[in-house]
């Protein structure tokens, strides 16, 4: 008698990539007893990172930015709360603090580690984690005037438009509180001109906005220095900038579980996991997919939710297609839209993506244009993220 072992699909990460992939595979394989999907995450909730800024500003509670992963039960996805320690693709094993897991297919989307050490960024405020957002909220409440510095030492960090948005949003908040005349806002950034990768239209709008809001931009900083907590100073090239309230943007780094594994490769912009641009599949292992922020710099895409989301969809389509023996159309995206909040108005920018399978790259820089610049854009951004969150699991 023939016996069937269920195909084990192991999904690592409870962020956008992991959640999207698990949902997609569960939908495609619904009702199949021969497929077992397990999602491992170090939290028992899914948190939508763009809403962390709304938590920091006190607009929403943390509960309004998250969904419990237990919701996956009705899709037949098993969830395990555990921290991933090491991935061993040669033995199809994942090591966690709750034990070892075997797989037939692995989808890993572990975001990026935030480097708060290299430039002593722990001295500042941020909203890159839930804890960070809550502390930032407190710092904002206690701030009544002085110099605000937003410090971005390196060009690869989560959500490329974030520093340009946060200065505009802080300006709007201080205006509402009636203390804008007592506040100086400065953004320190590696790009020569603000938001440069999005192209000339975005640069023009941002420079005009900064001029109108009296936001100082120190760009082209190629030799970033550490934050000096004692003197409350940031060194940016030859300039020393004093701060009373420091907001930091930590550089993205390869997550620890990938370190020293054959899943990574050295690229001109750092060490990242190596994937196929169309499918998210590991370059070296056919049964491993890595649609996470940790793969995006290697294929030319930004470390942000939209490209991760759709690379995860492509990976999930590949895995489901192989399991079901159905034709596979990974359907990687050819456009990506970014919703931005500049304080008084919102913007939606679209970037056309040119997929280049021969060089395993996706080109988008400079191919972006505004599709809406209006106060209505803020509302659309809110609506977009809230609907996105509500329909994620």
């Amino acid at each position, binding site marked *: 008698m023939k016996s069937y072992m269920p195909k084990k699909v192991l999904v690592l990460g409870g962020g956008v990539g992991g959640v999207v992939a698990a949902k997609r595979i569960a939908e495609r394989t619904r009702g199949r007893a021969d497929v077992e999907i397990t999602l491992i995450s170090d939290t028992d909730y899914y948190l939508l990172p763009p809403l962390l800024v709304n938590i920091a500003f006190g607009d929403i509670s943390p509960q309004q930015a998250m969904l419990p992963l237990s919701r996956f039960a009705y899709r037949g996805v098993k969830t395990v709360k555990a921290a991933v320690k090491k991935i061993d693709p040669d033995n199809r094993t994942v090591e966690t603090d709750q034990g070892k897991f075997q797989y037939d297919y692995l989808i890993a989307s572990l975001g990026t580690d935030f480097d708060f050490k290299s430039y002593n960024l722990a001295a500042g405020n941020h909203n890159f984690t839930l804890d960070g957002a809550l502390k930032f909220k407190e710092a904002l409440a206690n701030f009544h005037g002085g110099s605000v510095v937003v410090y971005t030492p390196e060009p690869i960090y989560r959500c490329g438009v974030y520093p340009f948005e946060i200065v505009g949003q802080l300006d709007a908040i201080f205006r509402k509180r009636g203390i804008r005349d007592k506040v100086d806002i400065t953004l320190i950034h590696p790009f020569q001109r603000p938001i440069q990768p999005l192209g000339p239209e975005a640069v023009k709008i941002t420079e005009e906005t900064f001029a109108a809001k009296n936001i100082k931009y120190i760009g082209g900083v190629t030799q970033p220095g550490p934050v000096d907590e004692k003197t409350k100073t940031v060194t940016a090239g030859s300039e020393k900038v004093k701060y009373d309230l420091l907001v930091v943007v930590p550089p993205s780094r390869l997550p620890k579980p990938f370190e020293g594994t054959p899943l990574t490769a050295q690229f001109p912009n750092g060490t990242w996991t190596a994937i196929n641009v169309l499918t998210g599949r590991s370059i070296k292992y056919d049964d491993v997919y890595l649609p996470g922020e940790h793969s995006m710099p290697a294929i030319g895409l930004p470390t942000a939710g939209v490209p991760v989301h759709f690379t995860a969809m492509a990976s999930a389509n590949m895995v489901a297609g192989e399991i079901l023996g159905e034709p596979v159309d990974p359907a990687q995206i050819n456009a990506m*839209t970014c919703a931005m909040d500049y304080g008084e108005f919102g913007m939606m920018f*679209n970037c056309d993506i040119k997929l280049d399978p021969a060089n395993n790259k996706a080109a988008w820089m400079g191919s972006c244009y505004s599709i*809406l610049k209006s106060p209505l854009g803020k509302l659309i951004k809110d609506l977009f993220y809230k609907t996105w969150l509500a329909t994620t699991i």
Partner: protein
Amino acid sequence: MSAQTSPQAEQKLAELLKTLAEHADELQSLLDQLLELKRSGVLDAMMIVVNRFEELIHYLFLDPAVFRLLSIGVDGTLGAMSKLETPDILNVKATMQELIVRLGKNASPDLIANPKPVKGIWGLLSALKDPDVQRGLGVAFALLKMLGKQPQQ
């Protein structure tokens, strides 16, 4: 066997019933509207959008055409609209209407793809005898004058 209920639960139930009774008419109307939405299929269509939201966005991201249209049609136009006064809006609207009527009545894809060529100076002089061409030239010169004029702020 009857279920045991605590005094707190009974009080909550009583409050709930009171609220329901107070809003009975509105709730009945809401229920009627919901049933009508269900019967008409509108609710089912909305549920498709909710359940397939992710796919909907995915389809949009497969081809940038919609975003390109939004950029030109919405964002580009919005930028210009804020620079105009109310009479300008009426003017643009009437001009657009006239243009669309003329295009609709007189233009054809064949006219654009296979125009009758105007050859040399004699051909040009002959074409200029046509009163429609003469009026067209009038419009063209008016357009040239308009394009060359600096907008008054």
